[in-house]
């Protein structure tokens, strides 16, 4: 059974809209900016990819107060994908429509606000919506209510693989006949002080490039120094081929395969064997040979160890410099739980447009001896299939495979 992608939506520091995302990636425009940090909290100035759009501006406070920032972002991306799919506001057959949503942290900003109230408020007063804003299934629940998606709700929290895994599990749910339609994706909004402090303390965030903040994130570059956090959301509408055909929907691409593996080795150090297994599983699930794949959107976070290990695993699967590769996190930052969905939206559009985004800010790369790293300009391509990798802290690896429609 084939599963079509019939709608795309994206919200990131690059702007609102899937096409805006693809345009920026093609042009090499970065959404990363300098953030001031906080002397009071010993938070050093850092680079981040911040969403600047007003979120749900028309929503009255009585409704808006129910949402954490990551859920408001989910609405924006999902609205776009749903509209592009040409669906009515309510799912045509709610009992055959599902939602699968990923987030790494969930309501991080709301949780921080509640702690601030608890420790500094006089009298301490925690907002009554704290629980329903923070819970990791909040965004999925809002989307289910908004579109009456009643067949299944999957809420996946698997660090950086969250939304990719939500999408992959929804693919199998549709193939297994549990629904005909699924709204999938992920959202993340963790650019608050406590969260940024945690990432800084871990030593994986790239130091701010004060002279060129927009180039702080440099995946696969020899001088890479770490990741840059981003926020945002991305959504896709998935349908069985029969369902899409019956309502005359236009397929944008086929979600062809899902591969998932677990390293079970280390909380933060990636493992080439685990990554290789995920990619091979996705290829097998999609019925693709490595030679049929014309592009890989790498996980590519720009950590020294992570990029080197991913280069090794890509080489193991495809051979030396055998497939064009780029890491778009250089421009939209690392959206953690939402990253897989955003990068899949980018990957689908790369296939649609026949133009593969470059890996930005690469000045020199020894890893290019292993990888056909797309550098400089976006590369014209007739690729018919592509992979998107998402490899998570905790050792979960997800690869998604797409084919041109």
């Amino acid at each position: 059974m084939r599963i079509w992608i019939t709608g795309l939506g994206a919200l990131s520091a690059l702007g609102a809209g899937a096409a805006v995302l693809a345009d920026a990636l093609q042009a090499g425009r970065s959404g990363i900016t300098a953030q001031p940090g906080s002397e009071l909290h010993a938070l050093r100035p850092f680079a981040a990819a911040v969403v600047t759009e007003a979120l749900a501006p028309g929503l009255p406070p009585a409704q808006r107060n129910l949402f954490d920032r990551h859920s408001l972002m989910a609405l924006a991306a999902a609205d776009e994908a749903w509209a592009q799919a040409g669906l009515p506001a309510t799912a045509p057959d709610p009992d055959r429509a599902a939602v699968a949503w990923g987030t790494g942290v969930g309501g991080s900003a709301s949780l921080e606000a509640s702690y601030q109230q608890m420790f500094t408020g006089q009298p301490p007063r925690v907002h009554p919506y704290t629980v329903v804003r923070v819970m990791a299934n909040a965004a999925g629940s809002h989307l289910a209510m908004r579109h009456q998606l009643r067949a299944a709700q999957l809420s996946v929290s698997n660090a950086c693989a969250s939304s990719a895994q939500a999408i992959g599990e929804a693919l199998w749910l549709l193939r297994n006949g549990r629904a005909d339609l699924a709204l999938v994706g992920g959202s993340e909004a963790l650019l608050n002080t406590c969260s940024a402090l945690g990432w800084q303390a871990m030593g994986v965030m790239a130091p701010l490039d004060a002279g060129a903040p927009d180039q702080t994130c440099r995946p696969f570059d020899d001088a890479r120094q770490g990741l840059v956090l981003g926020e945002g959301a991305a959504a896709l509408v998935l349908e069985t081929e029969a369902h899409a055909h019956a309502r005359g929907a236009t397929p944008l691409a086929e979600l062809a395969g899902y591969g998932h593996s677990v390293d079970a080795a280390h909380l933060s150090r990636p493992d080439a064997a685990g990554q290789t297994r995920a990619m091979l599983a996705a290829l097998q699930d999609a019925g693709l040979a490595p030679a049929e794949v014309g592009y890989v959107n790498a996980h590519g976070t720009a950590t020294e160890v992570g990029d080197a290990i991913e280069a090794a695993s890509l080489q193991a699967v495809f051979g030396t410099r055998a497939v064009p590769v780029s890491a778009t996190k250089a421009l939209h930052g690392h959206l953690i739980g939402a990253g897989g969905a955003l990068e899949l939206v980018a990957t689908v559009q790369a296939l649609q447009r026949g133009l593969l985004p470059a890996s930005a800010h690469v000045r020199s790369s020894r890893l290019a001896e292993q990888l056909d790293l797309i550098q400089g300009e976006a590369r014209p391509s007739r690729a018919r299939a592509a992979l998107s990798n998402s490899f998570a802290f905790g050792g979960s690896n997800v690869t998604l495979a797409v084919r041109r429609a």
Partner: protein
Amino acid sequence: MNRTLDQLCTLAQQELGADGLSDKVDIPFAELGLDSLGLVDFMFTVEDHFGVAIEHDRALAQPTLAGLATLVDELLVAKAQLVSA
């Protein structure tokens, strides 16, 4: 309409994105679109605006804008007495 009730109507209109609540001051909150959880949320806004602490049970005793205005006025009087004492 007293000043407190007038302000409460404005707050509720902003919160709910609704108009004309000054004609509905005796209508239960639930019928205005504020369920029990929504009412707690609204109380946060009211507390911030008037600088008082509202006990949830007391707010539920007369769950209308007029009832809430009476309660807020009582709390404001008590607060003023506390300050002057």
